[in-house]
């Protein structure tokens, strides 16, 4: 047998190793046993056993988001594949590079309703960037390498390879990942320099310019963020970031206005509304960002730089669309700005900053602390202060809901890849398994999952995985005993009829932690907060910190459904049921 002749399963594992994969997040089953057998026989890549395939996918996402590399998941056929669907959709919405290997029944049984058979390529077609069903062993090496190329290039996304069991057993010839030219898939990455020159001209003439950056900058790699910082400094313009873009630019920088959108900062949304030049980079004008479309930034000239042509003019018509890699575009703009010794309109910019600073004076994130009840905002401010003091680099994952928005508002990120949150799909139960992937990729870092008690319970089985691999993940639960965001919407839009949003019968989180070999601690009173946070950070191994917070607290500022950026609700009592139209209520 020649050196490159091997079984399909061996080809799969060899291809993963040659693609530089170090960690695989998976769960075995009948249709992937040959692959697990090959994993058993080698020591190059390490397999992390999740506790449900949904968790494996989020772990792969956490790995990918915190490294910029492709995250790899391995699941069995049928239920393994269907459980993976949420994670795949999440990765598609947030442009996260994932390769997910799914087992499939043998080719001769496909279509026969065999045991644990599902039409995986059919089910995952709309929730992947691309998918493959390998029916010929000769295609396997090419498909394996191509999947990594497709997942990581252009606008990144999830790719599924469905692998019938007979293909895993069949003998084939392995080929390495040589550079190849795909027949049809050729994403355009080089932006038009004429259009970028036009963008520079617009920037030099703008009176009220604003950078608006998102996940595309983070996906473009660390250098893109570094260059963005230089560009923003060179121009002196203010910058706002989407939920996905936090960390592309330091969020606590004096030029940063913080997050934009539904729960974005007042100054950020007002600046979006009133700017005369919007420089969008790696953003997709998501409905959470734009609010009411016909009132979205009515007076601005809009530049949009994005690698995906379908992101341009989808929701908002832009004046200068530029298709290409955000990193290349930023590099060109920075060099152009410097080489041509360009200057912003100084007087106008000064005036613009005065306006912006007036908005800042509103201090939209202020809240009223209480002597007896911990405010969630307060808990996060204290967490931020403690993470600052910790010697380790910190990474934060979140679940979805109020705690997620508060984390986005109150925590600070100065580098890309430090903030892992489910933005587009809004997947509750994302943060805990994602933290597995982050901690695996960064064993020495401080990884905190800012969580709500309801979201956490959606994937709490992964506590077992975290215990198995001794991952020192810190789970910071803002426990208000409600599905907080559901409760908030019911309060604001449904007359305070709290239908099914109370999380009854919660476990004792301390005992729960201990039962998995974690450490558990609880803070009931503001005076206990700092001590619990300190102990959480200094305790070795995984910790649950159950922070009992104000059950009634709502997340502000808020742009209600169907409202415009300058129609933000700043705090309690700002909205009455009747203020939101029936059609506005119909929006999510």
């Amino acid at each position, binding site marked *: 047998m020649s050196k490159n002749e091997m079984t399909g399963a061996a080809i799969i594992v060899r291809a993963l190793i040659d693609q530089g994969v170090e960690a695989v997040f998976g769960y075995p089953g009948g249709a992937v046993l040959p692959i697990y057998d090959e994993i058993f026989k080698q020591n190059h890549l390490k397999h992390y056993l999740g506790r449900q395939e949904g968790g494996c996918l989020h772990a792969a996402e956490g790995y990918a988001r915190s490294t910029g590399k492709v995250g790899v998941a391995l699941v069995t056929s049928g239920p393994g594949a269907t459980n993976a669907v949420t994670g795949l959709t999440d990765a598609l919405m947030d442009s996260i590079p994932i390769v997910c290997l799914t087992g499939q029944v043998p080719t001769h049984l496909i279509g026969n309703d065999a045991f644990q058979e599902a039409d995986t*390529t*059919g089910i995952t*077609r*709309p929730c992947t*960037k*691309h*998918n493959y*069903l390998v029916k010929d062993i000769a295609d396997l090496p090419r498909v394996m390498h191509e999947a990594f190329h*497709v997942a990581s290039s252009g*606008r990144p996304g999830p790719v599924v390879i469905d692998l019938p069991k007979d293909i895993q057993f069949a003998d084939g010839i392995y080929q390495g990942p040589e550079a190849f030219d*795909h*027949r*049809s*898939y050729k994403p355009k990455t080089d932006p038009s320099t004429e259009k970028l020159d036009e963008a520079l001209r617009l920037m030099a003439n703008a009176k009220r310019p604003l950078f608006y950056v998102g996940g595309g900058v983070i996906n473009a790699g660390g250098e893109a963020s570094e260059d963005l910082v230089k560009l923003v400094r060179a121009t002196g313009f203010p910058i706002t970031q989407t939920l996905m873009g936090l960390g592309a630019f330091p969020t606590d920088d004096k030029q940063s206005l913080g997050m934009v959108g539904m729960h974005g900062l007042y100054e950020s949304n007002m600046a979006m509304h009133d700017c005369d030049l919007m420089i969008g980079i790696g953003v997709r004008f998501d409905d959470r960002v734009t609010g*009411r*479309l*016909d009132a979205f930034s009515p007076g601005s000239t809009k530049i949009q730089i994005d690698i*995906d*042509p*379908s992101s*341009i*003019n*989808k929701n908002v*018509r832009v004046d200068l669309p530029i298709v290409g890699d955000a990193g290349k575009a930023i590099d060109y703009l920075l060099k152009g700005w410097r080489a041509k010794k360009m200057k912003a309109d100084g007087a106008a910019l000064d005036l613009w900053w005065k306006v912006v600073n007036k908005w800042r004076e509103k201090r939209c994130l202020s809240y009223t602390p209480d002597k007896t009840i911990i405010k969630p905002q307060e808990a996060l401010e204290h967490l931020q202060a403690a993470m600052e003091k910790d010697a380790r680099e910190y990474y934060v994952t979140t679940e979805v809901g109020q705690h997620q928005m508060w984390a986005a508002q109150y925590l600070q990120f100065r580098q890309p890849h430090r903030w892992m949150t489910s933005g587009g799909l809004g997947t509750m139960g994302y943060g805990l398994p994602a933290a597995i992937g982050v901690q695996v990729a960064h064993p020495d870092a401080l990884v905190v999952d800012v969580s709500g008690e309801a979201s956490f319970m959606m994937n709490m089985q992964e506590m077992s995985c975290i215990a198995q691999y001794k991952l020192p993940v810190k789970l910071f639960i803002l426990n208000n005993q409600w599905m907080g965001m559901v409760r908030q919407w019911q309060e604001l839009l449904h007359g305070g009829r709290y239908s099914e949003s109370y999380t009854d019968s919660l476990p004792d989180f301390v005992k729960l932690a201990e039962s998995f070999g974690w450490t558990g601690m609880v803070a009931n009173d503001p005076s206990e907060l700092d001590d619990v946070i300190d102990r959480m950070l200094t305790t070795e191994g995984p910790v649950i910190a159950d922070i009992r917070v104000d059950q009634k607290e709502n997340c502000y500022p808020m742009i*209600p*459904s*169907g*409202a415009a950026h300058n*129609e933000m609700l700043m705090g309690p009592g700002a909205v009455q049921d009747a*203020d*939101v*139209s029936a*059609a*506005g209520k*119909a*929006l999510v």
Partner: protein
Amino acid sequence: MASVYEEQTHIEQVARHTIAILVSNEPGVLARVIGLYSGRGYNIDSLTVAETDHIAGLSRITIVTTGTPMIIEQIKAQLGRLVPVHKVSDLTEEGPHVERELALIKVVGTGEHRVEALRIAGIFRARAVDSTIDSFVFELTGSSEKVDAFINLMKPLGLADVARTGVVAIARGTEAL
């Protein structure tokens, strides 16, 4: 407080576009295209697909679709994003092109109706490709409007069955996809 749904200030004109797509002839490629249309709520008025280059393994899909200019632009961008798609061409926008449809039309009848059907078929240059003493199957090619017109004329004359291919289209002149 108003909503996006109520405050559409101007309604963009909906237009019919004929889009030609060159794809790798691989399993699932048609499902990808159709799934994209249904998943994103676009319209398909007509769709044809067949392999056009066996050696290179290429198929050509022709879709007639309707939408506002922004939707049509989205459709093309979304199609272009599919991995097995080589090229997307909006024939309606890119200039003059030829559109043809083929239809097989069965007309059942005797006497005057039968004679009239045959006479109209002659005017439309439809060919009788099958005949019994009380039926014809006509083959007709032409624009969709011509096929519509012929079918309408056949209705009172015993129209029994219609099979249409949907539109195939190609640009005029030297330009190739």
